[in-house]
């Protein structure tokens, strides 16, 4: 039988506010354990939360960027459960009245653009972190992350494949980065997700029984966890069994998930309205101010790149998804560089360097003006493409512009015919065999000799001039 996979995602994104959600402790990654803590975020008796208004701003911005309705009235609730990383034994979250509801995100699929519903986005606080020492019979807790603001984005079960899930996660990430509410650094855990998967025979209307998979810490892991869960559930159904509703834990090293809790063991979180905090009222003016402050979203940017710059959809998609790349792109094009050429450099050599050095595009040390300068030097014949590839790493390593680098390193292209002729004579005198081959009518020898001349010039000789002058010199020897 053929099965259809139904996927819904719950994405947790840490917000990049200066301070935590309910106290004035610094909100940043790392730091010595238990140094970014105060009576409020470690839940000392008598301490009270005070909501950081920027968290609401960021939540609303996220909601608006994902086409959600923003609640004019909402509240915060306590989610009660015991765990050592949760110092109050409840998490302040939102239950029945979230900040944002009924939105969507568009993703590119093989069948074209597809709208993925956003059920809700709510604000909540993060918990601390348990630290387990190898072989120790105790655990330690670091509360630095406790009280870091999060938004939880819950999708509708609209995703049908691991690829769609990936595209959805990429869209969320690029949107949150573009509007400046989260840095979405997976390796620092600032974007995490829970994966809900069920399968059903193709054509069936009702959803199958779903499982929820936690501890999915990268996009790659999300796709793997979905594939694993899909295959596991199909195998159960094929064997005549029934899928149990349960919560599972993904182990990325093993590439498997394990049962955490069955339906019977599911927590009763005893949600109730947080009495220490007032309800949140969002008026039209607040909402509209934030709407007007929103930058162009990646999806809009992509459209514009295709329409205005005639870029292929593929290029436009990759560039617009990255704040750093799109900024460089627009700056370089603004300096007069050809859009497609700029795109080729950004998605080719520059992305290669980023991947090799694990650098984020936002951290590229040079601007679009420098990139445009590099490209114009190629086009004017000052340097060759090959030389440009040597200049680029220097641009990453120093704050010098391409012209300076080319001058200092003497990389400028030689177009002077006399100078090139001199190099050619030197090469011909050292390669008698090849010269003889040419004389014997083997035209191929020209290719070899061109390479030798280029080499002798350390790549700086103008290829066009070499081509013309080499033939001239050889003909003279005939």
């Amino acid at each position, binding site marked *: 039988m053929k099965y259809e996979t139904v996927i819904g995602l719950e994405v947790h994104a840490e917000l990049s506010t200066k301070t935590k959600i309910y106290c004035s402790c610094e909100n940043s990654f790392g730091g010595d354990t238990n140094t970014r803590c105060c*009576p409020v975020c*470690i*839940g*000392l*008796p*008598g*301490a*009270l*939360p*005070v*909501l950081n208004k920027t968290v609401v701003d960021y939540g609303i911005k996220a909601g608006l960027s994902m086409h959600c309705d923003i609640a004019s009235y909402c509240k915060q609730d*306590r989610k*009660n459960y*015991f765990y*050592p990383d949760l*110092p*109050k*034994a*409840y998490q302040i979250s939102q239950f029945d009245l979230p900040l944002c509801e009924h939105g969507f995100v568009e993703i590119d699929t093989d069948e074209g653009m597809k709208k993925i519903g956003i059920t809700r986005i709510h604000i909540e606080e993060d918990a601390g972190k348990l630290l387990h020492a190898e072989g120790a019979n105790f655990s330690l*807790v670091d509360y630095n992350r406790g009280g870091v603001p999060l938004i939880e984005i819950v999708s509708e079960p609209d995703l049908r494949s691991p690829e769609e899930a990936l595209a959805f996660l990429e869209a969320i990430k690029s949107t949150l980065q573009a509007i400046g509410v989260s840095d979405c650094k997976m390796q620092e855990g600032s974007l995490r997700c829970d994966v809900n998967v069920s399968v059903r025979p193709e054509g069936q209307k009702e959803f199958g029984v779903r499982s929820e998979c936690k501890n999915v810490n990268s996009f790659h892991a999300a796709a793997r966890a979905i594939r694993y869960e899909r295959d596991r559930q199909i195998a159960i159904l094929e064997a005549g069994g029934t899928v149990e509703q349960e919560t599972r834990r993904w182990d990325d090293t093993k590439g498997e998930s394990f049962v955490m809790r069955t339906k019977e063991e599911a927590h*009763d979180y*005893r*949600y*109730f309205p947080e*009495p*220490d*905090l*007032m309800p949140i009222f969002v008026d039209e003016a607040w909402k509209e101010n934030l709407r007007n402050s929103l930058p162009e979203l990646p999806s809009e940017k992509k459209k514009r790149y295709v329409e205005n710059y005639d870029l292929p959809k593929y290029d436009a998609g990759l560039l617009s998804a990255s704040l750093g790349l799109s900024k460089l792109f627009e700056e370089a094009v603004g300096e007069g560089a050809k859009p497609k050429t700029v795109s080729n450099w950004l998605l080719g050599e520059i992305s290669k360097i980023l991947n090799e050095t694990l650098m984020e595009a936002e951290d590229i040390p040079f601007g679009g003006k420098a990139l445009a300068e590099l490209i114009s030097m190629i086009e004017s014949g000052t340097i060759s493409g090959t030389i440009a590839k040597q200049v680029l790493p220097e641009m990453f390593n120093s704050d010098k512009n391409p012209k300076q680098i080319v001058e200092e390193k003497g990389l400028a292209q030689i177009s002077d015919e006399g100078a090139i002729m001199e190099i050619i004579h030197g090469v011909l005198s050292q390669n008698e065999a090849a010269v003889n081959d040419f004389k014997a009518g083997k035209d191929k020898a020209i290719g070899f000799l061109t390479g030798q001349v280029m080499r002798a010039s350390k790549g700086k000789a103008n290829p066009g001039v070499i081509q013309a002058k080499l033939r001239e010199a050889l003909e003279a020897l005939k």
Partner: protein
Amino acid sequence: MKALVSMTAHELHDKLVNREVSALELTRAQLAHIEETEAEIESYITVTSASALKKAEEVDKKIAAGEEISPLAGIPVAIKDNISTKGVLTTCASKMLYNYVPPYSADAYERLLGQDAVMVGKANMDEFAMGSSTENSYFKKTKNPRNTACVPGGSSGGSAAAVAADEAVFALGSDTGGSIRQPASFCGVVGMKPTYGLVSRYGLIAFASSLDQIGPITKDVRDCATVLSAICGKDEKDSTSLHVSTPDFLGALTGECKGMRVGLPKEYLSDAVDPAVREAVLSAAKAYESMGAEIVECSLPMLDYALETYYLISSAEASSNLARYDGVRYGFRAEGCEDLDSLFLKTRSEGFGKEVKRRIMLGTFVLSSGYYDAYYKKAQKTRTLICQDFARVFETVDCILTPTSPCTAWKFGAKSADPVQMYLADICTVSINIAGLPALSMPYGTDGEGLPIGVQLIGPRLGDAKILKAAYALEKGGR
């Protein structure tokens, strides 16, 4: 001559200003009296002699330097042991926090420190403020100074007893369902629960967040107004604290009440109220009439639902507020725990007393899925109705006069066996917390056994000055 320690704060303030007595002499006299009295009354969990003497010396320096001192400067105060005091043991009278020393201070206490008040100790209470007799303390049983065979009331029993026994000139208590007013009534002193949000809850160890409020326990109404002025005000650290300018509480104390409309709700004078208590309330009403106030008979029918509503809401919030005591970070941790679950289970089983566990169980139950709508949600709806009940009555009256408690102080153990009997003692006070209103209890006569009777004055929201005015008039001219 009146002993120093039996004087009010305003009397002592005059003596300090006139240099008839130094703050150090006063504090020494206070500590000596505590030393003498404490063996019998047991008001305190911790006595803070050293820091008190140090603070008193500071005050004397200011006086010597000719600085103007605040009305509470140099005045000995007892602080209920659920109010966080930096560097000083704060136990909530629970084994769970037997060793807990907070690294920060409650806002209300900070404000008293700012006024140079001298804390002499941390007062005993029912564990986590749950109880009406202070018999639920893990540490000791405080006696009623008016009759040591009787309970001092609760939960701020230590605070009220300390003031009544002259072990402090005034005290801070906390009131979730009557915990300031009822012990004040039992011990024959003045106790006030301000409008919810008037005094910051920051640093008050939470029992039921939407009901808790810190307030003064004093020897007279003037001191009550002085202390309330000192501790009230917007606190940015408490989101529920109100943005209001501080009313002139002392200015309200004119001694007059002519033209005031005083409501007398019939539901509070039913047969469930002791005859002596009812007599006292009616005679207070007569006194008001004779002073030119108008007595308006009125009705608060929702009183029937107040107790249930209170125990559902307060227990629900308590079950969540007290969940943090898990043995992981501070306070008591049980021995011999095998794993995480046993750490939580053993610590909480051994660390909490019976009444606290009863309320946690009740609160956990009413918030559970499947029961939430029937209990918690319904209680919230009833809460709205109770608020409307009061709002309606306050359209025609300035304040409401009722008993503080249906009875006077009972003997130790008299109600301990039956929690419902104990809960019923709160019948006159809980609805005020549910509605977030201000209310004050002041002594008005005694019963046949000479035990003090308290009458309660309830005001509309932010009508704190109104009830102080009415109380002061009754105190001055009503006998």
